């Protein structure tokens, strides 16, 4: 942590996209042997700064100095050759290749014009051992491992190049607590070897646990650079969102909500022993109008699979599903939507966004699909709805013609939420609607969910954050090892209670 020469020194970086100034004169330094956290809300410019450093975007203004030499990387490969390795939030590996092939892809040791497979294996094993991942068979196919393990393999790949700088963009968002600890121990090992680590995460506890220094961005501008030890958590939050703490506390305060009367009416949706071979089983849940049902469970416990069954994205082959009192088989998402069910996937990029279309087109998509191609939603209605939802959900930039791929993650999430709200569903299934989203937007979305339920909408809410599930839900269904183990009414239930169920051997 000495004030030695920085490995990376970025000065006055500016980048503009059509209609958006993504970065405006930002300075950033990274020293060898430190873990440096880059913090800011969605759209603050974190990803853009990383992409500027790794050669994905060319900078409009400013200088980048790496190891004392001025650089302007044209491609990520050039950045990598200069010693900067990046592990992105979404795993960017080849799922159909083996672990060892992925680790050494493009850098395979050669012999007589061919690949020296024995060395490939040896090198892969070496780097896996260093990261305490020796239990992974280098010959196994990458896709046979969990996302968490794939993430660690991506880091192994990054380390194999002898990187001087390692950039970790939201590396923990799909890891469970043990895996996070494993990752952190790897990070510390690397730091002690003098690697400069740039760490981006929305989990502030993790930032405080692992980082030495932090840089805060807001709206594309630099707020400041701080030593982690000097900046208390509340101070950090107020710097990130630029609001006084009182206002934040007010925002956090959950609205008190009328409790739905479960006995009174027929439930909107009722599943009995719903399941699908190879997916989940024993899903027995009831959702009334105005009720929020939380799905809790560990990663891979079957939360998403349950949501997909309820939405017809996968077809159930066991059990019974009744909607509004009548038994239904949902064969396609279309048939679920026609029964006023909506589903916002956890996988924004692959299952939500139509990246090359505008915000307006994306907003209107589900409504248009419902009307069929023949009856086009009139342009004036489209514009009006787009403007209305951009305002109510505070979507930024407030430009309905912007391409959705140019928006930040949190704003994309809001657009996808709005896509479903426009269709006025009776049941909204939200799979991780707050994942990878900053505190400000997160509270906004939580408030929105609570407000929708007060208005009579049923909600199935999925989140990896148990605290969030407890705060919002009226009832909590607990999943474990791909089947449902408990159904707990949320009256004074504590985190520990739910965790006991998740951990317990029986229910």
């Amino acid at each position, binding site marked *: 942590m000495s004030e030695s020469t920085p490995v990376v020194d970025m000065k006055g970086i500016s980048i503009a996209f059509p209609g958006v100034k993504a970065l405006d004169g930002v300075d950033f330094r990274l020293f060898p042997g430190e873990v440096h956290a880059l913090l800011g809300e969605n759209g603050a410019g974190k990803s853009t700064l990383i992409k500027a450093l790794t050669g994905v975007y060319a900078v409009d203004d400013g200088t980048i100095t790496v190891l004392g030499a001025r650089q302007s990387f044209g491609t990520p490969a050039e950045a990598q050759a200069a010693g900067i390795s990046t592990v992105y939030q979404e795993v960017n590996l080849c799922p159909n290749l083996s672990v060892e092939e992925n680790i050494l892809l493009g850098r395979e040791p050669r012999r007589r014009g061919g690949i020296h497979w024995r060395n490939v294996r040896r090198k892969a094993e070496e780097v896996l051992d260093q990261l305490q991942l020796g239990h992974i068979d280098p010959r196994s196919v990458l896709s046979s491992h969990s996302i968490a393990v794939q993430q660690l393999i991506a880091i192994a790949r990054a380390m194999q190049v002898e990187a001087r700088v390692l950039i970790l963009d939201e590396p923990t968002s799909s890891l469970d607590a043990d895996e996070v600890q494993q990752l952190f121990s790897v990070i510390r090992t690397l730091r002690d070897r003098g690697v400069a680590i740039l760490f981006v995460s929305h989990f502030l506890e993790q930032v405080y646990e692992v980082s030495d220094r932090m840089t805060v961005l807001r709206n594309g501008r630099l707020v400041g650079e701080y030593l982690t030890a000097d900046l208390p958590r509340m101070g950090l939050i107020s710097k990130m969102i630029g609001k006084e703490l009182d206002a934040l506390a007010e925002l956090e305060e959950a609205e008190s909500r009328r409790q739905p009367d479960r006995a009174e009416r027929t439930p909107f949706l009722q599943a009995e022993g719903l399941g699908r071979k190879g997916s989940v089983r024993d899903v027995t849940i009831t959702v009334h109008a105005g009720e929020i049902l939380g799905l809790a469970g560990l990663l891979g416990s079957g939360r998403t699979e349950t949501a997909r069954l309820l939405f017809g994205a996968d077809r159930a082959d066991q059990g019974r599903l009744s909607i509004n009192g009548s038994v239904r088989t949902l064969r396609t*998402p279309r048939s679920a939507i026609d029964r006023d069910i909506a589903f916002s996937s956890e996988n924004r990029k692959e299952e939500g966004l139509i990246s090359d279309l505008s915000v307006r087109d994306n907003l209107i998509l589900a409504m248009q699909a419902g009307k069929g191609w023949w009856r086009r939603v009139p342009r004036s209605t489209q514009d009006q709805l787009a403007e209305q939802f951009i305002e109510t959900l505070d979507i930024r930039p407030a430009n309905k013609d912007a391409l959705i791929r140019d928006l930040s993650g949190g704003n994309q999430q809001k657009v996808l939420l709005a896509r479903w709200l426009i269709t006025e569903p009776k049941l909204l299934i939200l799979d991780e609607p707050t994942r990878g989203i900053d505190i400000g937007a997160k509270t906004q979305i939580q408030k929105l969910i609570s407000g929708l339920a007060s208005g009579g909408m049923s909600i199935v809410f999925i989140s990896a954050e148990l605290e969030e599930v407890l705060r919002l839900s009226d009832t909590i269904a607990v999943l474990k090892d791909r089947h449902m183990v408990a159904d707990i009414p949320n009256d004074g239930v504590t985190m520990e209670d739910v965790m006991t169920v998740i951990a317990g051997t029986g229910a």
Partner: protein
Amino acid sequence: MSALLRHRLTWPVLALVLLLLLNQLFRADFLSVRIQDGHLYGSLIDILRNGAPTILIALGMTLVIASRGIDLSVGAVAAIAGAISCMYIYSSPDPSSWQTAAMGVTIAVVAGLALGLWNGFLVSVIGIQPIIATLVLMTAGRGLAQLVTDGQIISVSNDSYQAIGAGFFLGLPIAILIAAGAFGVAGLLTRRTALGTLIEAVGINPVASRLAGIDARTITWTVYVFSGLCAAVAGLMISSNVTAADANNAGLYIEMDAILAVVIGGTSLAGGRYSLVGTLVGALIIQTLTTTVYTLGVPPEATLVFKALVVIIVCLLQSSRARTLFRQRRRPVTEQSQVKVAI
């Protein structure tokens, strides 16, 4: 100005204009259109008329490509349509009446629709990759056409039938009117309804589209049926123009011209955003190029190479990456490079 330079139609239109001017340089009367016997005549009219089949097929191809697919079978479908209608007229008891021609045309169009249904079925229901699914018909289709014509070139003499490819109406060649009509209908159908947006959505992200409730299967199916229809009508034009059905050579390689027209017009082969006007410009460039070859007196053996050269220049002009590279060499300041894969 810079907005104009970035517009995706700027470069193709510029290329077309340059090509036309080049022709004018070598033949002073190239751009003139005269009226003779109440009909419009001139090189420009010829380009439009001879290009009509390519325009039609490229039109269908644009929507297929926008949906992330491709239709290689259009040439074969065109040959089948020509074969069926000519064979019907040839073997009917009254081969010169307009009723016979109308019946032949109807059967051929229905066949085109049926073949489009087949392609659409393979792609959207069975889930075969479009390039393979349509390759089946590309290969088998020529064989089907040969079976229909019994391996012969079938010549017909029917004035009504001949009118489709060679006739005039209100001073304009009927082929041009048909192509223009199809163009207008497709434009209205995709942009006045939501069909265009939904096709783009399916082309950009099929999974997300399905989850948003779009009936992706029907959309995909529809574009292949439309492509089959366009190919059949184009096949009728081709065979009508020469009053004969040639199962082997009618519409040969027209799928390549059509794909090229779509790409020159700025629609990405990866699917998604498309431009019908761009496709029109692309098809016209290709047809003008063929004419240019004759105007310039390029030796026949060099024709294909010459065409390829022009095409590669147009594609390079369109590629933002190529333009950036070119600009960087003159001016060392880096432009904001667009991270788009240029085709």
